[in-house]
């Protein structure tokens, strides 16, 4: 059809519209030849293939503290004057960097999984109604957490300068991970006689999404505060999985989430050691964040759902199920304080009273 159309149009409007595609190139100028900052680079693949970090050699591996360029010039390539800038607002290394980014990027690719075909869906068995409701409610809650993570990453992604492309590459995998988590959780909720539950009120989602001051601020809430809690939730869900399908989903989500936290903690460490005041800012943010987190913990939907899952039903939830959940929260706060300490953020003295209460049991 295209052939027929083209000959018709060519005859109708040949004079005004034809631009001969052959015009303009016949004599090559080769102005590009020899224009390189560094030549003779020959990176050889290692036992794990040719990884992103492997090609960080010579000047190509030099990551500056500040990236002036607001174009998409690949790091190490020759620039071109007169190129209009793009709105890359994160141009300092301390605003986004984590040394592990390139490795996490490759790991994410190697550890990809496919909910449609790799989750053993045929292992699902009918569960008691109260347990199914609890599982579905957790799928709903965790979906909303994954959605928040997806939205905050993609909000910042295109503001990050190309000098730090390893971080952008890694965050692309995190974006995809979040999409896959949304998919897997939705599939679990809709495949075993249940459905979705009630949405979260969204206290912590709100503080994450409203972190407009900088990516680091978002990372404080997304990974250090909430992410640390989600790890404990996923670990708890994995230990109480009812079938192989759930075990597969939770264990793979944990793998994904562990990468996300590794980036998050590593970035906060980098920021706190390379930017004056960063630790103090994080401390202030966390004092505010803990209050929201505490309020969310007290709301009870997640706690009750987890208690029902741990207790094998409402009856067991009222006793040992809730007790186990409270231990989970205590473990979360212990982890949180340990990481804060390692990052040089003092939270123990002014820890939110509700957090203290959970710690004291």
């Amino acid at each position, binding site marked *: 059809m295209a052939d027929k159309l083209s000959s018709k149009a060519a005859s109708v409007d040949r004079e005004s519209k034809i631009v*001969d595609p052959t015009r303009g190139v016949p004599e090559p100028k080769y102005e590009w030849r020899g224009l390189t900052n560094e030549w003779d680079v020959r990176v050889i693949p290692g036992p794990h*293939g*040719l990884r992103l970090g492997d090609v960080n050699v010579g000047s190509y591996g030099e990551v500056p503290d500040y990236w002036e360029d607001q174009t998409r010039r690949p790091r190490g390539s020759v620039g071109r004057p007169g190129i209009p800038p793009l709105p890359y607002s994160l141009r300092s290394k301390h605003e986004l960097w984590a040394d592990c980014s390139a490795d996490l990027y490759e790991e994410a*690719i190697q550890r990809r999984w496919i909910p449609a075909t790799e989750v053993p869906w045929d292992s699902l068995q009918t569960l008691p109604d109260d347990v199914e409701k609890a599982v579905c409610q957790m799928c709903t809650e965790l979906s909303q957490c994954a*959605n928040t993570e997806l939205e905050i990453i993609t909000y910042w992604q295109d503001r990050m300068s190309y000098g730090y492309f390893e971080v952008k590459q890694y965050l692309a995998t995190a*974006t*995809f991970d979040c999409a896959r988590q949304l998919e897997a959780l939705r599939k679990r909720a809709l495949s075993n006689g249940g459905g*979705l539950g009630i949405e979260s009120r969204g206290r912590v989602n709100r503080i994450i999404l409203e972190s407009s001051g900088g990516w680091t601020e978002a990372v404080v809430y997304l990974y250090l505060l909430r992410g640390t809690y989600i790890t404990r939730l996923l670990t708890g869900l994995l230990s109480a999985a009812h079938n192989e399908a759930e075990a597969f989903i939770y264990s793979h989500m944990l793998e994904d989430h562990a990468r996300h936290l590794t980036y998050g903690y590593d970035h906060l460490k980098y920021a706190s050691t390379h930017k004056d005041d960063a630790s103090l800012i994080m401390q202030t943010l966390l004092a505010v964040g803990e209050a929201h987190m505490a309020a969310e913990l007290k709301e009870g939907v997640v706690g009750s759902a987890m208690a029902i899952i741990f207790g094998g039903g409402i009856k067991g939830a009222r006793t040992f199920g809730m007790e186990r959940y409270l231990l989970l929260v205590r473990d979360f706060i212990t982890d949180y304080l340990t990481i804060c300490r390692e990052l040089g953020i003092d939270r123990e003295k002014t820890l939110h009273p509700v957090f203290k209460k959970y710690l004291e049991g």
Partner: protein
Amino acid sequence: MSEATEMPREHELDTSWMDNMAEWGVSAKPGKRGLTLADIQVGSYGELPKVSDNMTGRPRGSTARPEAYRVGAYQVHTLSEIWLENAEYLYEEALQRQWSSATDIPWHTLKPLPDDVEEAECLLCTFFNEVEFVAGDVPARWIARTTPDYLEARNVLSAQVMDEARHMDVFRKRALANGGGLMRMSGATSGFVGSIDLARDFTEMSTRLHISGEGAVLTMFRMGELFGQNDAEKTMYRLCAQDEARHVAFGVMHLRCLSETAPERREEIECYLDEAEDQLMAGQQNPAGRQSESSEALAVLLGGGIEHYDEGHKKLLVIRRRQLKEYMKRVISAGFADRFENGRSPVPAQYAATA
């Protein structure tokens, strides 16, 4: 722990939420391709709102809470703005066809190339390194702006962000793995009015990115067998083409959906296509276009060296011809065939001139 343990009042079990579950009794079953996104489009969970009022980021079909915070200022909240009929399939395909540039490219097949050929390949890799992440940055931005009610379309865009990161990575690796290096950037992807970056409407962006920009690149990747100098490069182009085809399919299917569901926007879309077509051969975003340095490099690669430039240039014209033909097919498929029949588009004439 014991069953006799009494919980403090504040830790008493709250089961009120159990009375507020959304549609219940849903049992989606896996089909031949596993449990796909299409399989869970059941009951109310499969109902797509034409206009989404979801401002809280809740999963589609879950029960809304009146007291939930309105944290989602979603710019894209009408179905016609972003929807496409085959989003579920494109997303599942993307998951099945992920690949690793570290381990799936036969890097050991790289052999030293003559300087002119290595330089040409490295220029092309620099170009692709630069442009591939336009296609990562921009869709990412639109994910955050789109209501989660259209999660299938958002998930396809998430897969695209991943794909483009891998493309950027594979071209950088190639440039630095065979005795060459990166060369001069093209600057083709900067913020000019009418560029992919600056579009303030999703469909405008998709028309530029998926239909014209990635469409031209897809044709090139498909021709990678012609200009790839070894199995590593041929594999690289083949795998990138596979990904790129999904991205282009997104644009075509979305445009088709929009033209059917929002016919009042057709003339506006025609204007985007006018702009895109002005740039298709003349702009720098097409690596085989008339204005780009990369087209010289391509001719060197296609000819097998500078001394065979003329021969390479003839092959380059075949690529351009194919780009034009495939572009027209896509636009026709998207429901905009008229522009090629009524003289509005210069592409048929350009195509005829290459015969």
